[in-house]
């Protein structure tokens, strides 16, 4: 799924990484537990989270996660957006809560085993 589709489905605002909206993601992970993300997430995943601290960006960096979607309308500070920009990580913000955002992406085919 293209990031531009993710943006449309979630009615999300792109905070940084407009130039990457043509890139693809294969799957997604919704979590507020960074250690779980570090333990289980696979390649080319998109991270959905309600956390907006710098360690979310660092976790993504270590995992080679290229896109983070902040849920429930959360907006990180400018310094965090800048940090993501430097690391070529795309950030989006959606008003949907975590559960709904994950459900919408899944039902539209992202990470859905049957559709792959």
């Amino acid at each position, binding site marked *: 799924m293209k990031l531009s589709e993710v943006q449309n489905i979630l009615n999300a605002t792109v905070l940084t990484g407009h130039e990457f909206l043509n890139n693809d993601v294969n799957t997604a992970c919704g979590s507020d537990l960074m*250690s779980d993300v570090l333990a289980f997430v696979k390649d080319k995943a998109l991270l959905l989270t309600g956390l907006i601290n710098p*360690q979310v960006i660092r976790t993504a*960096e270590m995992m080679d996660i290229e896109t983070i979607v902040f849920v429930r309308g959360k907006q990180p500070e400018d310094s965090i957006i800048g940090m993501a920009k430097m690391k070529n990580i795309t950030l989006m913000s959606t008003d949907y809560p975590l559960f709904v955002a994950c459900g919408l992406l899944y039902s539209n085919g992202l990470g859905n085993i049957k559709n792959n």
Partner: protein
Amino acid sequence: MAALTMHYTVDGNDFTLAGDCSSKVKKSLTQLGFDPTTIRKVAIAMYEGEINMVIHANGGFIDVSIEPDKIVAVLNDHGPGIADIDKAMQEGFSTASNKVRELGFGAGMGLPNMKKYSDEMNISTKIGEGTIVTLTFYTKKIR
């Protein structure tokens, strides 16, 4: 090739900076041409260790040595030490504060993750003196 060594200071007072060393090491390994899987393992294990140094041990030093066939990271802190290593290694065991939990860590997965992603992990610790965690990763040849 002689071993390439790097020395970093981990600031124990600033959680927002935690992971900075791991980030730098990841960049260096990428520049040196290690394969992405190896780089990711090193980055994740080091990052969990670096977080631990900040949230449990008030910071310290990290020394990384890069050799053609292995990468060794030594994480050295002067924190409280670990009373029961077996217990600390259990998934879910954590003494982290609620504040740390709210930031997405403190789920008791750090040490198990470090073990999972490294090829060898050794913990040497003394109560009241500190902890030294040594992580070894065997690598494929540099291109």
